[in-house]
């Protein structure tokens, strides 16, 4: 099994007619993802390599049964695109676009939480998610991942995610689902959302978690691991030696209250019973041992 997506997932690409949407839409389809539609109000009725283009997500859903949307719209249009997808009836919206203003993210995250509570948002500024062998939505190179299980991956960083998929594949370890939650200030899906889903997925036996400095998502995840998770977690946190940001004012420091450094995150995760690798390779080696024990 997998989390969030599987072989039956049907995806509509918002921005399929743009260069990025077209490029990754094709790659995702070649991987085996059911790429059933695209949207562009100005190009409704046309197609991209036989994939029909609709004016809105609602029309695409009605005509094709799409249940997930993937957003490649440039940043200024993301707020409207997310609303179009949520009101259009998909259950998951994956926003790949980077450079979305914080106030837009905060607005549509809360708008969805209130008006469309059943809709899951992933991103913005994320690489997407892949259930190897079943479905690949976003910008991950599918062939670097081995299908099957027993590992689930959740990550804030793109390249480190790819590295983790690749290292596990080299070791012959498969992945149920790999979710890139993105590094923006208001991620639609959190570490905890993914950890909870992996905890409930019978084919996932262990979770690899890749975090980085900033925010408190890793610390909150540690609390969840401590109280709610039975499955082993191996973590890696990037940014141990990153210098403190050139922050201005004190509001940020008051909010975080000492959280946010790589050391604080690693301490919290260790304290929660997770194993922490000091570098990506060490984390991979820890996961090899964890999987061998099970």
């Amino acid at each position: 099994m997998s989390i969030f997506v599987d072989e039956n997932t049907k995806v509509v690409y918002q921005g399929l007619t743009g260069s990025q949407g077209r490029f990754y839409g094709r790659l995702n389809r070649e991987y085996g993802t059911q790429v059933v539609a695209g949207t562009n109000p100005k190009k409704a009725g046309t197609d991209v390599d036989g994939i029909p283009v609709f004016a809105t997500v609602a029309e695409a859903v009605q005509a094709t049964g799409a249940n997930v949307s993937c957003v490649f719209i440039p940043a200024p249009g993301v707020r409207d695109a997310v609303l179009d997808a949520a009101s259009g009836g998909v259950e998951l919206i994956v926003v790949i676009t980077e450079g979305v203003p914080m106030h837009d993210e905060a607005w549509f995250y809360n708008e969805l939480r209130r008006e469309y509570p059943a809709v899951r948002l992933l991103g913005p500024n994320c690489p997407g998610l892949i259930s190897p062998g079943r479905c690949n939505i976003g910008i991950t190179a599918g062939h670097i991942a081995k299908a099957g299980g027993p590992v689930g991956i959740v990550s804030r960083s793109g390249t480190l995610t790819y590295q983790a998929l690749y290292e596990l594949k080299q070791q012959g370890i498969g992945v149920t689902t790999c979710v890139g939650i993105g590094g923006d200030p208001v991620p639609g899906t959190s570490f905890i959302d993914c950890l909870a889903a992996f905890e409930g997925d019978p084919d996932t036996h262990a979770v690899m978690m890749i975090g980085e400095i900033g925010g408190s998502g890793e610390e909150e995840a540690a609390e969840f691991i401590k109280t709610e998770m039975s499955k082993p977690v191996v973590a890696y946190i990037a940014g141990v030696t990153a210098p403190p940001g050139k922050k201005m004012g004190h509001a940020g420091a008051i909010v975080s209250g000492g959280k946010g450094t790589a050391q604080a995150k690693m301490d919290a995760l260790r304290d929660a019973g997770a194993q922490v690798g000091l570098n990506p390779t060490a984390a991979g080696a820890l996961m090899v041992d964890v999987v061998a024990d099970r």
Partner: protein
Amino acid sequence: MDLFEYQGKQLFARYDIPISPGAAAYTVDEAVAAADGIGYPVVVKAQVHVGGRGKAGGVKLAADVTECRTHASNILGMDIKGHRVGLVWIEQASDIAREYYASFTLDRSAKLHLGMLSAQGGVEIEDVATTNPDAIARIQVDPVDGLTATQCEEWVSAAGLDPEARAGTLDILQKLWRCYEAADADLMEINPLILTTDGVVRALDAKVTLDANSVFRHPDYEQYEETQPRDSREQEAFGKGLQYVGLEGSVGVIANGAGLAMSTVDVVNEVGGKAANFLDIGGGANADVMAGALEVINHDPDVQAIFINIFGGITKGEEVANGIVQALERVAIDSPIVIRLDGTNAEEGRAILQPHLSDRLRLEPTMLDAARAVVALAKAK
């Protein structure tokens, strides 16, 4: 993007947030002219992107033209924690009765905006947060609703301000919220927010961080991009559009992806070295970007060896390798280079690099091996 105090105040003024009359000055003569226009006494305030300027002597009261000239000439050119003062803000002096604190920022954990208001303003607000957290009245603002009038009134009541300051504070907070939202700010902080002896509430300082991602709807923000503090290396990288942060070590780092770049800096440190920089060249890794990145690093006199750490995803190993080879044909590099190339078609990429390898250009199989090799080279030189 961090704004200077005067830029923040000018932004506040556009939203009718009361500030003291003032003017920016780049020279002593400009400072005196500004003070003559405003009327004495004035305060001469260093404009720097760093806290603690008052303790460093960067804020002085001038009672007359002679004092104004003395302070302006002392402060202009002063070094405050490594930041050279190139500009002062001349402001009408205030008779301060009380100092408060007010701010808006994002609460990342709650995914809502956070307002903080305290009757105990002044420079030590972080201490207040630690020792007496109840002295800070906090509210969460849902971005969909915005700050409502009722919510704002309750908030001001909860902060326990002096009664004569409440109406003025209420007005300022509503304007500050509008400014925070409409200007796409990550942070807006007024510390101190003052009550004057004649009962007026005003913003005496302005700490504003704007969201660089919002420039598409605020074209005038490019002026702030230009005045961000950067050292010469960061300035060169900024000109080339590279994601670069200068550090203090001797190993130049080039990696694709922010996470991998951060991780590379960590691994260099883990094996006993120190990175000279963080540089993320993004996913493409073509010859142009690679050449630009190598040029910036080559101009850093502290760099003794360079670590190129690339993980091919969609971009294949042979494309990355060709990019590196072409970049090295264009740019003459003074330091030895160690490359780690992994991921999609890594074998093909390594085969392309093979004929170019030497003492000065090495290829290592893993990130750790490469880090050890590059740190050894940096120390040997």
